[in-house]
């Protein structure tokens, strides 16, 4: 259903009233639909502090996201095999989704539980107790979520990429393993430039890498595929994988259209927060591929209609901001807009889950090429290059590099990327750090965001 109302940001309580009106106007919801307020009653209290888009498409998006745990338990009850894929963001899940009764999800998603449940789940407290203190990134919440089993069912297979990933995740996954969770570790090599005379391969991002790395990752995927087959009792044929890639590309195409429409429109047809959530669907389809396609189709329809009618947020003069890294506290995305910015380009650390997968190669080769495009596996210089290209493409006027508390990579690449962008793009760049509950540092965040937006406005007016 297309929204009968102009775009407006509303809170949870208003959403529940609006939903009643929409039902009266003919809104039909999927089985996981319902009032957003019920999620608050179930503990997702951070929702009370968020502002949401008022379209039926956004309601569906949020209900889809917030029902993931419930849907995972339901899938288990229906006999689905569940693969917990850790760390690689967007590639290994395709191996599971290639099979008819299998699905994949990222236990890493527990990253957001402390924010969404405002610490009430006790996951960070548990992490503290087992020695995973604040020097680790918020993904430390995963151990409690895993062991508690209330947040998601115990997967039938757990994979984890290590090597050129981050120390936080590797260390935390190892602790999980120490608690008796079997993990299929696989090697993600550091992505480098070829040495003189070394055979080369080209990634979809345009980067040239040694062909040996592609073969190596492909061999690892073949190994994981064998385990997935074993767990699911079905053959992972080339045809099935090719079909899974085609579906993935369809979803990536939906997201590409959505991002372009939102970032290029004169007025932002969707708020930053909904864009972040929509992009996240790419990595494991929020545990349901069919629904992901449907949710994105609704969002696209709403966006197209708003763009065509000149509807959107703000007056079109907001500062165009490219955002680097996901935020541990979702309210930060609302904050950007309340400071006078709008989202025009993102690198939430999974841009390789948004790029189209090549279809002119054997499926495992294609997946290896995508895995090697993971911005965390390569150099900060390459990541900065991609961010700069994205910022140029979406005509960003400022860049916000959001640091993740405790994250091993942020202490190195944050400053590096910020400096590189300042010199390459000549636009204002600021680093901010967003903790899972940012209320206490909100004035500082606001000041920093406002300062960078102000600098961009001055630059715009030539002052």
């Amino acid at each position: 259903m297309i929204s009968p109302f102009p775009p407006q940001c509303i809170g949870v309580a208003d959403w529940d009233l609006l939903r009643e009106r929409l039902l009266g106007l003919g809104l039909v919801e999927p089985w996981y639909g319902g009032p957003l307020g019920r999620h608050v009653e179930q503990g997702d209290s951070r929702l009370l502090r968020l502002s949401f888009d008022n379209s039926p498409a956004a309601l569906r998006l949020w209900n889809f996201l917030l029902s993931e745990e419930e849907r995972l338990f339901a899938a288990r009850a229906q006999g689905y095999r569940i693969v917990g894929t850790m760390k690689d963001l967007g590639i290994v899940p395709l191996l599971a989704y290639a099979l008819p009764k299998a699905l994949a999800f990222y236990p890493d998603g527990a990253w957001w539980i402390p924010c969404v449940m405002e610490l009430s789940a006790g996951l960070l407290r548990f992490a503290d107790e087992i020695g995973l203190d604040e020097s680790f990134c918020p993904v430390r919440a995963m151990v409690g979520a895993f062991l508690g089993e209330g947040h998601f069912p115990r997967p039938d297979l757990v994979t984890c990429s290590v090597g050129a990933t981050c120390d936080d995740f590797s260390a935390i996954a190892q602790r999980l393993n120490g608690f008796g969770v079997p993990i299929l570790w696989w090697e993600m090599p550091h992505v480098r430039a070829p040495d003189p005379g070394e055979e080369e391969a080209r990634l979809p991002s345009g980067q040239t890498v040694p062909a040996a790395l592609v073969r190596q990752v492909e061999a690892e995927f073949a190994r994981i595929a064998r385990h997935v087959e074993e767990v699911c009792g079905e053959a992972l044929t080339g045809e099935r994988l090719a079909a899974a890639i085609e579906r993935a590309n369809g979803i990536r195409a939906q997201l590409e259209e959505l991002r372009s429409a939102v970032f290029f429109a004169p007025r932002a047809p969707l708020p930053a927060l909904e864009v972040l959530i929509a992009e996240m669907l790419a990595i494991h389809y929020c545990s349901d591929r069919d629904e992901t396609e449907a949710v994105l189709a609704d969002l696209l329809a709403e966006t197209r209609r708003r763009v065509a009618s000149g509807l959107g947020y703000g007056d079109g003069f907001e500062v165009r901001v490219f955002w680097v890294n996901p935020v541990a506290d979702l309210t930060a995305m609302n904050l950007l807009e309340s400071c006078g910015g709008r989202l025009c380009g993102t690198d939430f650390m999974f841009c390789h889950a948004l790029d189209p997968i090549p279809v002119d190669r054997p499926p495992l080769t294609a997946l290896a090429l995508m895995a090697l495009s993971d911005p965390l596996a390569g150099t900060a210089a390459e990541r900065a290059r991609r961010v700069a290209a994205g910022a140029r493409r979406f005509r960003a006027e400022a860049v916000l590099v959001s640091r993740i508390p405790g994250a091993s990579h942020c202490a190195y690449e944050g400053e590096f990327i910020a400096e590189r962008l300042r010199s390459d793009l000549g636009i204002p760049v600021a680093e901010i750090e967003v903790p899972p509950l940012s209320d206490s540092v909100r004035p500082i965040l606001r000041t920093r965001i406002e300062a960078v937006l102000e600098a961009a406005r001055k630059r715009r007016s030539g002052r």
Partner: protein
Amino acid sequence: MDLPEFACFSPFIPAEWGAAHGVRLTRLARPPAAAQRAPREGRCTYAVSALELAQGFLAAGGAGAVFTTSCDQMRRSAELLAPAERVFLFNLPHTWETPLPHRLFRQELLRLSGFLCRAGGRAFAEEDLAAAMRRFDGARRELLARRETSRAATFARLLLAFHERADGSLPETAAQEARPARGPGVAVLGGPLLERDLWLLDLIEESGGRVVLNATDTGERTLPRFFERSRLVADPLGELADAYFGHIPDVFRRPNSELFRYLERELSARAAQGAVLVMPVWCDFWRAEAERLRGWLPCPLAAIDLADDANGRQRARTRIQALLETIS
């Protein structure tokens, strides 16, 4: 003529490999005083020291620097070094349970060979490699024998000097000194101990303990296994790769079960009654294992944040004394 020198920082980079190429892969362990200032939040103190040592080394005309991908911090440190052409980042696999990472390690050695040759080394010959391996192996046996007659800090210093010389020769030993003969046996494990950190070992001994095992990243845990003589003829490179990658237990490896197996074996063999875990500030790998080790080790554990300032030393002193009181 002096051999071209390359700075390196990982026990997984075999110095024999450098020797076979006519170069020295010297492991630096004495950071300048400036490197001891508080680093940026989130950066491991060891990685920061390695970066500063490498920067100084390259600026002073060193032939190159070799870093590994053993952790995110070292991998990213390598990128901050200039000039990039003189920096080699060794892709050190973290997994080890399948044949692939072992193959990769060997391939990386060959890639390193190319780098060394481009930077002034000579192409390696198998006989040269085998000869270097024999020399280093013998030196390591002799080195380990000195453990029994040296104080802990002296032995640690010997190891550092051996790695720094990186030519298979043994450093001079200072005048014989008495190793504590009595006191509870303490195993020291954890991250690297640089020259500036060796006060910690003295502190344990001055407090009445006896260091029976140095299982830190710069201690005996990270020495390769002894070489099999027959394999030195048949396949020296394969033997080298296996002795290092196939056997050094480390905290970053996945899974890190071999580290626990090593500790189980060695703590019992050395009759350790207590353990000290050294955690470089902001090292995720060692910090994450601290609580697990506490529950798993058969003896009490004192976990220490390695900070070389007055407060850090005082905290370490208090913890070590408390540990020794518990186990005495």
